[in-house]
């Protein structure tokens, strides 16, 4: 495979394929190398995508039969103790009409495959079952292509785009990105539970084809900094739970035990009753935030998506940061190729585009959010317990007056924490996301 290309893209996920589409649109000769046996084979199934970002790459994605699972019409947030919890949600009819496909669920194995096919139709070359094991460099250290696991597997390219995710042996061996520290990644496990389509629509109270997402915080992560989600797909529910890797290592809780107890929670169990587990997958999430981002480009290469630590934990936005950064990388590459300068200087348009876009603005806005959560474990144990205690007491009718109940609740809160600490926590939390 001693061929030469304008661009070699490592990884056929949302970042790599977005770039491939944009490059192919401009007639740039691009090859995408994917270690899975097909694009999506190594991805966590079941995720939320946003129509806005996909339309930037493929304006006609619905006509191209994008494999959409459900159109999201409602987002719920749960705050749970072991025994119960709070639920708030927001549903809006506009998400079924004018803003349909604002957000929708996809199965990544299906979606990535479809997305790669679109790039391939545009003229990009997608090569699966091929692992990139090293980067080719000239004597000045500029990246001039990649080495793959295939025989004679050198692929020369003017520019290399690294879009191979957070868990990358290539990053470790070539150190284009520092290996993430344990506290900079979350380890999540996900299970797909199969249920009849109508039963899902009944249980979530939605019309045919519509769906709901639930984001969950609280005691379910066993006091660790983490989150769980439930996403509705056409005939499965995606259940996922994850926690900070450093917390997991310290707690000795096993990821698969975490998801088992999550499934038994009184708010979760009725939703998945009679369902059949169909898939079990694990994945890393890059949660290091702005301060853990590597140099995003250098001589002959750029980094996009998860690989670049572009991830917004608060708004569950990873896929769209990947797509947006992949697109901007492609635009910067086209610029560099036209100038005939693929050095760090020539590729600087990538940094400029990112900085002006929501990608870096959001990364900066939330740069302290991860640390805030990590340092305030009471969010995951003491507070949900107290919150549940308060609601449980107020809702229990047992002949005790409400004033007396309020007193009891305040006593309980003061015995466990203080008003000062609570206000400080809210203040710090606000500061970390404002």
């Amino acid at each position, binding site marked *: 495979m001693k061929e030469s290309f304008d661009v070699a893209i490592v990884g056929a996920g949302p970042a790599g394929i977005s770039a491939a589409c944009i490059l192919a649109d401009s007639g740039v000769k691009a090859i995408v190398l994917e270690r*899975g046996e097909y694009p999506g*084979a190594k991805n966590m199934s079941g995720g939320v995508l946003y129509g806005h970002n996909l339309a930037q790459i493929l304006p006609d994605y619905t006509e191209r039969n994008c494999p959409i699972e459900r159109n999201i019409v409602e987002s719920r947030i749960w705050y749970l103790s072991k025994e119960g919890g709070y639920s708030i949600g927001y549903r809006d009819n506009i998400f079924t009409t004018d803003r349909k496909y604002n957000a929708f669920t996809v199965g990544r194995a299906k979606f990535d495959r479809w997305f790669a096919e679109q790039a391939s139709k545009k003229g990009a070359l997608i090569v699966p079952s091929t692992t990139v094991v090293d980067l080719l460099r000239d004597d000045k250290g500029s990246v001039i292509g990649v080495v793959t696991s295939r025989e004679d597997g050198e692929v020369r390219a003017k520019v290399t785009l690294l879009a191979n995710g957070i868990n990358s042996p290539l990053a470790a061996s070539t150190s284009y990105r520092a290996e993430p520290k*344990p506290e900079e990644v979350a*380890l999540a496990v996900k299970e797909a539970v199969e249920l009849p389509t109508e039963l899902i629509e009944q249980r979530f109270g939605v019309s045919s084809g519509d769906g709901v997402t639930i984001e969950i915080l609280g005691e379910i992560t066993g006091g660790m900094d983490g989150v769980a989600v439930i996403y509705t797909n056409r005939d499965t529910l995606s259940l996922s739970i994850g926690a900070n890797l450093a917390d997991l*290592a310290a707690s*000795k809780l096993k990821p698969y035990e975490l998801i088992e107890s999550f499934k038994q929670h009184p708010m979760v169990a009725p939703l998945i009753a009679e369902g059949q*587990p169909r898939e079990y*997958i*694990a994945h890393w999430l890059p949660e290091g935030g702005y301060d853990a981002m590597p140099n995003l480009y250098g001589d002959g290469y750029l980094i996009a998506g998860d690989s670049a630590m572009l991830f917004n934990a608060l708004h569950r936005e990873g896929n769209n940061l990947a797509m947006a950064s992949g697109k901007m990388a492609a635009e910067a590459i086209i610029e560099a190729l036209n100038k005939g300068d693929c050095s760090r200087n020539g590729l600087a348009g990538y940094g400029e585009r990112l900085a002006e876009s929501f990608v870096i603005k959001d990364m900066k806005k939330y740069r302290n959010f991860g640390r805030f959560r990590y340092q305030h474990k009471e969010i995951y144990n003491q507070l949900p317990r107290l919150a549940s205690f308060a609601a449980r007491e107020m809702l229990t009718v047992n002949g005790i007056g409400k004033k007396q109940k309020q007193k009891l609740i305040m006593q309980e809160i003061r015995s466990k924490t203080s008003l000062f600490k609570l206000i400080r926590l809210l203040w710090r939390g606000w500061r970390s996301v404002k």
Partner: protein
Amino acid sequence: MKIEDKLFLDRFKVDEESHLKIIDSQKCMKDCPEQPCLYLCPANVYRLEQDHISVNYEGRFPRGGYGISHKFG
């Protein structure tokens, strides 16, 4: 549901050679008191035997190694 049953849900295409290898068994037993690999692996690949940690290769995910444990040691 046990982890063995969970992993049975996944379609396996086992390579001939494991991508997970323990390079220095002594290091695991002597220099790594916490042995986080025993807890962290979502596929429960690493098992503590009498004098070493074994890699239960076919139990692992067909999706990349979680080569992380040494960082905790």
